[in-house]
């Protein structure tokens, strides 16, 4: 060795610093580029139709993102653990029914009703978590079963009739239009979505819960052998995910002024698509909230834009499929470039 040990050490520290900086730079570059597909879509539609890039329409897009977006936030957690949640669609419907029941039939004040609606989502999530973690039922099956159970219960509890919430004071405001940013009329629901996204992002990146979410998804057995109570944490993670489903149910109720007992099925696939388009891996261990938000926005920009262009609906479906493929493919290419 020509270098003394100390000098070598110093050089190593320096080069560590350098490469760490590079890693960071690359990461933020990636983050920046993640918007690429979204921006490309927005640009395309803006050129294709003059009605697209209008304050009112942008607000439409945001609004139509709220419910799927919230569902996608919750399911991001589940997917990062390596699981999947098919119950969020009809589960949201059940939460919506329960929220309405709490506020009308049980006469709870608005705030309490909203809280209970969210908690009911947490309960459903907890049950999913219990099935997955304690009974070791594969999450696909556990949540598929819950999907059916929730759909049935929503009909049973509501008596297959919508439950109207007109009388609940202030409830509609949750969804209503806000005037916070002049020019752009952004409904409160959109703020709720972004607030929820920030909470989800912090949970995932800054807390133990988030760290375990990634660890379990990356290697459950190794996490368990490292002394982490994987069972307990899995239930907790699913419970947290359930809160978002509950919130989505509450917001859907506020928007429609009623709980609609049927439907919701199919939303889960949209939400999962948003998550995966956002770069979260279904194999678990990888993913981010910002990605999910972008994914959800891509989905709704796409639906809105094609519809604005008055493309026949059957072709719209084809186009959405193709664009999803392209978006994911380009995103993968980009990632590959960024890591090479």
């Amino acid at each position, binding site marked *: 060795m020509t270098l003394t040990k100390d000098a070598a050490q110093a050089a190593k520290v320096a080069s560590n610093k350098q490469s760490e900086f590079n890693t960071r730079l690359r990461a933020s570059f990636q983050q920046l580029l993640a918007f690429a597909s979204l921006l490309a879509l927005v640009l395309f539609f803006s050129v294709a*139709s003059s*009605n*697209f890039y*209008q304050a*009112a*329409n942008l607000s*439409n897009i945001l*609004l*139509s993102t709220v*419910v799927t977006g919230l569902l996608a936030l919750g399911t991001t957690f589940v997917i990062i653990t390596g699981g999947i949640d098919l119950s969020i669609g009809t589960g949201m419907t059940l939460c919506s029914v329960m929220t309405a029941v709490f506020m009308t039939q049980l006469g709870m004040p608005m705030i309490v009703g909203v809280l209970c609606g969210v908690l009911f989502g947490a309960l459903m999530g907890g049950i999913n978590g219990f099935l997955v973690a304690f009974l070791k039922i594969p999450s696909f099956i556990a949540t598929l079963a819950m999907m059916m159970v929730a759909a049935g219960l929503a*009909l049973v509890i509501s008596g*297959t*009739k*919508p439950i*109207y919430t*007109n009388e609940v004071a202030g409830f509609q405001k949750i969804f209503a*239009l806000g005037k916070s940013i002049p020019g752009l*009329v952004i*409904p409160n629901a959109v703020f709720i979505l972004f607030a929820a996204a920030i909470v989800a992002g912090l949970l995932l990146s800054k807390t133990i819960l988030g760290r375990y979410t990634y660890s379990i998804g990356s290697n459950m057995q190794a996490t368990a052998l490292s002394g982490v109570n994987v069972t307990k944490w899995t239930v907790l993670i699913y419970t947290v995910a359930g809160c978002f489903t509950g919130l989505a149910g509450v917001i*859907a109720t506020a*928007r*429609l*002024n*009623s709980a*609609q*007992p*049927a*439907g919701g*099925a199919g939303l889960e696939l949209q939400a999962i698509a948003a998550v995966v388009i956002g770069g979260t891996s279904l194999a678990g261990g990888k993913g981010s909230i910002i990605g999910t938000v972008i994914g959800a926005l891509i989905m709704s920009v796409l*639906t*809105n834009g094609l*519809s*604005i*262009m*008055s493309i026949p*609906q*059957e072709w719209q479906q084809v186009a959405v499929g193709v664009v999803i493929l392209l978006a994911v493919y380009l995103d993968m290419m980009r990632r590959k470039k960024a890591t090479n």
Partner: protein
Amino acid sequence: AEAPVANGKTYIAIVSKGFQHQFWQSVKQGAEKAAKEFDVEISFEGPDKETNVQQQMDQLNNAMAKNPQALALAALDSKAAEGVLQDAKGKNIPVIAFDSGVDSDIPIATASTDNKAAAAEAAKHMAELLGNKGEIAIVGHSQTATSGTDRRDGFVDYLKTNAPDIKIVDIQYADGDQAKSTDAAKTIMTAYPNLAGMYGTNEGAAIGVVNAVKEAGKTGKLVIVGFDSGKAQMDAIKDGLMAGAVTQNPVGIGYETVKAAVAAIKGEKVEKVIDTGFYWYDKTNIADPDIAANLYE
């Protein structure tokens, strides 16, 4: 609920086009009312979605396996149901069609409304309210189910022949889901800022249109006509958000279906066509007892 034979009650199997939505629930209600009245047992089933033709076939098969004395059917596709109809004929089980006609001579009676005529009625009012001109759009509930296509076509055809200056600029389908219909209607309004009117082809679609207009802050600027009833739609009409809507008589359809089935089992003569009618209702007549009887909350 089983053992229709065991307790000796007459058993009628009803297979509808759906069960989750209000319309079908009202049909079921009417059927149950008649069942009580005539002291018969019924079962009521329908597929999850109006596109699930296979599921309806399975339900029809299951219904036949329960050895009913009569079968009532709202076929999603009558040709697809041909086999079961033949089976029923072979077993001498009378078949009553409801909601939409069955394209076959096996059903001894059909209790339905003419969706096309009803839609034309909605179109007529729309044309009047718009003074026979302007751009309008339709939010449909199904691109393929007959109730969806008839309510679209009846409306479109009427305007074509009677109000050619009204231009239908866009038709979008949203599965009768309120939230989806809202998003679709809003997008249409954005794409066509001069839109003068909108038509929703069922309860979900109509409420979606109302929501969209509210959310877009265009209350009062569009003429909205709808279909079916339900609390939200009725409120919208009372509040003047919506010009009016056409309602069929789902409770009546259910009731007449069971009544006809009972008659057929007894060997009595049944009317071949039982028209349960449709009504235009708006702010002015919504409280009339005749009309109110055909509305459901």
